[in-house]
């Protein structure tokens, strides 16, 4: 059995993988919650490995996966200031289980590490050097997924795919441009508020808005909540609205508007990244809910025909890796089912087998 933890403030998502069975639970990290997890894990002998997700590692982590030890935990502790709500949870859960089950392999996954290789012109904000010196830069996010997507494209057709735009659909949709395995650009910036609108985040807005709100008497804390928790799909439509609600059939007028905006913004970013890459070999859409996303993906592709992509007529998404374009299409469109949990579980399993991080 392996267990996985992902921060989901104020909870921690606790995921148990046994053979091919997965159970998922949300737990508060108080003493009761911790006891509950330990009880659930059962006798020590059954537990083979642990994976913990660190959402934001800043400049402290350049490796996507590391074996947890004191030094790594210290770095996690140092990273708290970058995303306090999330990283505190990761530190707490990682420390508790490191101390409790010190004999088994424990892996820390850092979701920003992949983007620590962004070129300077992509990671830099055009603000004075004194500020950039203090760690103000684009960190990106969801690196585990984009890195994994790149590897899958190489398994699929490594000879012909060198430049991809990886589009991840979900509650925090985001896009990365990747060339020969290295990230070139990504939509998530200093925080995951930048880029595409999300479940609760506003996405790209004019920064003057922050100034306008503050000078009208809205406090900084209120603005923080407004942009990161009260905007996006839910804030705009005035109801709890997840990605699946946005793309479903027959949405309300407000949700339909959100869908139009999201689709439009995705098309803009695809264009922007194709431009940076100087052309593209494959557009790769990935989602945990791939089948449900089919229509949305096709709507996006319909507007990108000019790029030279030729779709297979009435091609449906049937398998976890599905090509929507015909043989001979200048640009491939690939769809991949993906879940961060599975990626983490696979990596932990490999680590158990080999005894080292691969």
């Amino acid at each position, binding site marked *: 059995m392996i267990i996985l933890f992902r921060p989901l403030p104020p909870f921690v998502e606790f995921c148990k993988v046994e053979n091919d069975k997965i159970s998922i639970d949300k737990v508060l990290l108080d003493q009761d919650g911790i006891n509950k997890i330990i009880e659930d894990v059962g006798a020590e002998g059954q537990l083979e490995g642990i994976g913990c997700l660190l959402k934001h590692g800043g400049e402290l982590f350049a490796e996507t996966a590391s074996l947890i030890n004191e030094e790594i935990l210290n770095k996690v502790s140092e990273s708290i200031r970058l995303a306090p709500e999330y990283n505190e949870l990761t530190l707490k859960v990682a420390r508790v289980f490191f101390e409790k089950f010190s004999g088994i392999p424990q892996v820390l996954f850092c979701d920003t590490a992949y983007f620590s290789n962004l070129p300077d*012109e992509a990671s*830099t*904000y*055009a*603000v*004075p*050097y004194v*500020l950039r010196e*203090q760690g*103000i830069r684009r960190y990106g996010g969801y690196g585990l997924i984009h890195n994994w997507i790149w590897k899958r494209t190489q398994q699929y057709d490594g000879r012909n795919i060198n430049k991809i735009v990886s589009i991840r659909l979900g509650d925090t949709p985001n896009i990365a441009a990747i060339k020969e395995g290295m990230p070139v*650009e990504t939509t998530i*910036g*200093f*925080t995951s*508020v*930048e880029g595409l*609108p999300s479940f609760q985040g*506003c*996405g*790209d*807005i*004019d*920064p*003057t*808005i*922050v*100034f*306008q*709100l*503050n*000078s009208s008497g809205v406090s900084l804390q209120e*603005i*923080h909540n*407004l*942009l*990161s928790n*009260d*905007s996006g*799909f839910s*804030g*705009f439509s005035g109801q709890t609205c997840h990605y699946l609600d946005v793309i479903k059939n027959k949405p309300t007028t*407000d949700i339909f*508007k959100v869908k*139009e905006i999201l*689709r439009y913004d995705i*098309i*803009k*970013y695809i*264009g*922007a*990244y*194709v*431009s*940076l890459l*100087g*052309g*593209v070999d494959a557009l790769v859409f990935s989602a945990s809910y791939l089948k449900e996303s089919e229509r949305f993906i096709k709507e996006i592709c319909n*507007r990108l*025909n*000019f790029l030279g992509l030729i779709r297979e007529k009435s091609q449906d998404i049937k398998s976890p890796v599905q090509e929507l374009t015909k043989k001979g299409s200048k640009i491939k469109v690939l769809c991949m089912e993906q879940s961060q949990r599975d990626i983490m579980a696979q990596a932990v399993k490999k680590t158990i087998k080999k005894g080292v991080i691969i």
Partner: protein
Amino acid sequence: MNILIFNCGSSSLTYKVFEAKSHSDITVLLSGKAHRVGVKGTEESFMENHFNGKIDKYVLLIKNHQKAASLALKYIKSRDISIDYVGHRFVHGGNEFNQSVVITEDVLRKLTTCLPLAPIHNPVSLSVIQEASKTFPDTPQFVAFDTAFHSKIPDYGYTYVLPQRIIEEFGFRKYGFHGLSYSYVTGEAAHCLGQNIKELKIVACHLGTGGASVAAIKNGYSVDTSMGYSPLPGLVMSTRCGDIDPMLALYMMVRFGHGPVDLMDLLNKESGLLGVSGISSDIRDILHNISGKKSQEQLSLKMYIQRLKKYIGSYIAILGGIDVLIFTDDVGVHSWQIREKVCENMEWAGIELSKERNQTVLDDKTCEINVENAAVNIMTIPTKEELVICLEGMKIIKGKK
């Protein structure tokens, strides 16, 4: 009919008197420019006037735009030129104005409500309007707006994904700027190519020495543009940061204790090329010094190019292709290096620049700089904002009669 046009820049005032016989027969009778208006610096402000092939320049203190306008008006009077209409550029018309209008009491009142939308530009334009009405109390005046050309951007293009009550309360949305310039250069491009503007997909880059933006144009109207609610977002500009994570603005206030005004100064006046290169806000200086291989200068240039390439790419995507790529304003027309770098590796979109043509562009004429038989026409077009304002005025005056 003689039409006097005022065009306020952030630290300059240009004026022109056009003699307009018809839409196609418009000549400049008199023109001038006040330089370094209200600038505190080592170099002095000065006024220049062009009349009958003669230029006269004189140095004097020009403490604000109103003073500059009064100097221009005095000069026009002294030459005994009659004025039938006075037209003004107004940067931000907000939701109140989506087309040019003749100034009335009611319009003046509405213009006043637009002042906070462009706190640097709008009050200055209003002061010039007031100065002109003192000199020509009985002459009709009109205003043309930089935001009007963008008023047909679809809602999914202008909407920020904030709670709708906040959007309504504050009027937050993308407005866009440089509309008068885009209006002129797209019309000029269609005219030169002998094509109907309604059938062209155009991406236009207005690259000024101060502000800069990009617009996507379809059916003769802007469908998206890189500036937003204010002229801050979008491209990396001389001293404006362009696109940043909005949370960064908050973070700087919390972490470094910047007040809102300090923060706006920092992002508007100390960022952009100046903030990154650390040496200059002028892309021409940076290009000039680049051989020195100071890494921060290289970085600022790379960022300028990258950002521009991103916007061009995203606008090609929403237009579903591109027929014409336009470069305009000072940097757009004068800097062949920028155009060369931006057009590199753009064959995927059919953009192929002729390096030779690109290096022999004329400053005062529309030039085509793509290779022969390329899919996309690439053009440099010197912008003529004052002429557009004049034409706008003629449209509404005609409409009145």
